[in-house]
C-alpha cells in the first residue's frame, strides 16, 4: 500500500521518526458474536433452538498511518476468541466420521448441539477512510494464527440412517452414551484468513466505539476434512470500545 511505500530505506533514525510522527495508535476491547457456519444455510438445517453466548473477548492494538487527508493504512495485532454454541434441528444431514481406519457414514435427522471455539492472534491490514474526525471506515484482509481451538458436539434425539437414507435406522437418545458424540479439534486449520469491514466512531478525542465484521474466507477445517458436506467459515461481528493512545 502506498503508505508503506513511502517508508524510507536509508534515511536513518530521523526519517523513521518522521514516518511514525503522525501514526495513530488505538487500543481496543470488544465482544464478538457470530458463527462458524456454512456460507448460505443448507436446507438440511431446519431451526435454531439455542444460541448460547460465548466468552468471545477481543482485545488488541491498531496503528493507522495516514496517507492523505482522508485515506490511511491500518495494521494491528489482536488476540481474540471466536466461539459459538448452537443447538439446531437438522433433517437428512450427511456426516462421515473416520477414526483409526474405521469410518461411519450416515444421514442424521434430529437435534445437533455444536460448540466451536478458536483463540487466535489476528493481524488485520486495512485501508482506512476518514469521513470526519469522528467516523472511520475500515476494510481489508486479516490473518489469524490459532493458539487453541475446538469443534465438538453431539447429535441426539433423532435417528441415523446408516450410509444413506435406505440404510439401517438407528435411534439416538439424549444421554451421553445414547447420542452421537463428535470431536473434530484435530482437523481445525491453524492459519486462517478472511476479510474485515469495520467502522469506528469517536465521540470524544480519545474515546470511541467500534463495530467490525470479520468474514472468514479460509475454511474452519483443513481441506482434507470430509466429515461435513459443507465448508464452515468463521463469520463474527465485534462491537467494543476504542481508546486512542497516540
Amino acid at each position, binding site marked *: 500500500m502506498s503508505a508503506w511505500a513511502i517508508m524510507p530505506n536509508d534515511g536513518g533514525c530521523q526519517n523513521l521518526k518522521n514516518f511514525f510522527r503522525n501514526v495513530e495508535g488505538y487500543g481496543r476491547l470488544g465482544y464478538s458474536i*457470530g458463527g462458524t*457456519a456454512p456460507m448460505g444455510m443448507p436446507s438440511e438445517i431446519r431451526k435454531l433452538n439455542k444460541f448460547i453466548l460465548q466468552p468471545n473477548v477481543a482485545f488488541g492494538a491498531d496503528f493507522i498511518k495516514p496517507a492523505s487527508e482522508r485515506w490511511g493504512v491500518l495494521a494491528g495485532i489482536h488476540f481474540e476468541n471466536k466461539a459459538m454454541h448452537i443447538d439446531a434441528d437438522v433433517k437428512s444431514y450427511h456426516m462421515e466420521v473416520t477414526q483409526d481406519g*474405521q469410518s461411519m457414514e450416515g444421514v442424521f435427522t434430529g437435534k445437533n448441539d455444536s460448540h466451536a471455539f478458536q483463540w487466535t492472534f489476528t493481524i488485520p491490514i486495512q485501508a482506512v477512510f476518514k469521513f470526519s474526525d469522528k467516523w472511520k471506515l475500515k476494510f481489508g484482509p486479516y490473518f489469524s494464527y490459532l493458539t487453541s481451538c475446538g469443534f465438538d458436539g453431539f447429535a441426539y434425539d433423532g435417528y441415523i440412517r446408516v450410509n444413506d437414507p435406505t440404510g439401517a435406522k*438407528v435411534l439416538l437418545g439424549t444421554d451421553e452414551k445414547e447420542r452421537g458424540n463428535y470431536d473434530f479439534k484435530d482437523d481445525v486449520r491453524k492459519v486462517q484468513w478472511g476479510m474485515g469491514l469495520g467502522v469506528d466512531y469517536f465521540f470524544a478525542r480519545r474515546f470511541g466505539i467500534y463495530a467490525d465484521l470479520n468474514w472468514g474466507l479460509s475454511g474452519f477445517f483443513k481441506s482434507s476434512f470430509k466429515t461435513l458436506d459443507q465448508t464452515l467459515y468463521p463469520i463474527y461481528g465485534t462491537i467494543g470500545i476504542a481508546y486512542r493512545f497516540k
Partner: protein
Amino acid sequence: MKFFNHNTIVAVALVALATATTSCFKDEPLNAECDIEKAWVHVDDLEASFYNANDTLLNVLSTEDKIVFTMRDDADVTAFAPQFKITAGATITPTSGSAHDFSKGPVTYIVTSQDGKWSRKYSVSCNRMARYTTSVIDFDFEHFELDKDYHKFYVWHNVLPDGSLGNDWATGNYGFYIANSNSAANEYPTFVLENGYDGHGVQFVTRDTGPMGHTFGKPIAAGNLFLGKFNMLAGLMQPLKATEFGIPFTQKPIRLSGYYQYSPSAPFTDKNFVEHPERIDAGDIYSVLYINHDRNGNPIVLYGDNVLSSDNIVAVARVKNVNETNGQWVKFDIEYEYKKDINPDILANRGYNLTIVFSSSIEGASFEGAVGSTLKVDMVKLTCEEKE
C-alpha cells in the same frame, strides 16, 4: 463534502453484521427415506387364512426387504391385497391395498422417496406354512452368505420344512458394522468356521468395537447367533432390546444337542472397559420356548433383558458351564425343562416362540467379557416330541 451521513454508515454496518449473524432458513427438504414400516392384510375370514391375528400385521425392520405373511397351507392367496404404511410422502408401486395373485410367488413392491432420489425394492410373499414332518431338526450351518447390502459380514439361513431357505437366524454383526465398516468378514464377532465338526460351523469371537464403539459406551461385542431378529432401531439406546428372540414354532422341543469348543480370553472387562482379572469369561448356549402373546392376544417378544426371566417362558434348555475345552469338540445334549404345560392348540396355531442362542461371552449383552473369547459351534440338533 460528505457522501454519507453518519446514520447511513451505521445502518450499513448493522446490516452487514446482521447478515452474518442471522440465518436464513430454506424450505424444508423433501423426505429422502422410502421404507415400508408396516404391512398388514384384512381378511373376512381370519381363521380360514391365518393361524392367529398377529400374523396379519407385520412390523418391518429398516434392515428387512423381505416381507412374509405366514398363512394356513390351504389359504386362498390368488387375490391377496396387503396394505402398507410407508415413509411420509413416499409412493409405492403397485399401490397399497391392490390385489395380486400371491400363489405364483413373491410380488415385488417398489417404494420411492418423496424427493424421488431413493427407492427400495421389497419382496412380499405369502408362505403357506409347511410343517416339519420329522421330529428332529438339524442346524448344520452350511447355508450362509455375505449380507446383501454391504457384502461385509456373514448371515445364515435355516432350512425350512419344504427345503427352501429361511431367514430365522440373526446376529449382531450389523451393529458391529456401523462402527467397524472396514473390517473383513472374519473380523466380525460372528463368522463362518471353515473347519467345523462336520463341514462348516459357526465361530463366535468377542471383539473390541474400536474407538467409535467405545464412544457409544459399547466397548465390546460378543459373537452371537440366535433364532429371531436383530433390530437396529434401538441398538444404541437400549442394546438389550436389539435382540428380538424367537420365531413361531409349532412343535414341542425335548432336547437340544450339538458340539462346541470354547476358549476364554483375558483380561475380562466390564462395560466401562475396566479390567477385572479375577473374572473369567464363559460362553453361553441356551434355548427358550415362550408364549408369544398376552391374554388379549397382543404379541409379546422376549429381549436380551428378559429372555431368561420372563413369566411367558414355558421351557428352557441351557448348557451349564461353557468353559475352556482345550481345543477339543465337546458334545452337549440337554433336555428342555418345562415350567408350564404346553397347550397343543396354541402350539398348532403358532402361539409359542422358540429361540436358540449362542454367545461367546455369557455377559456380552451387558458388554462384559474378554476380547478374544472364542466359541465354536456345529451340528446342532433340535429333537421335538413325536407327533401322534
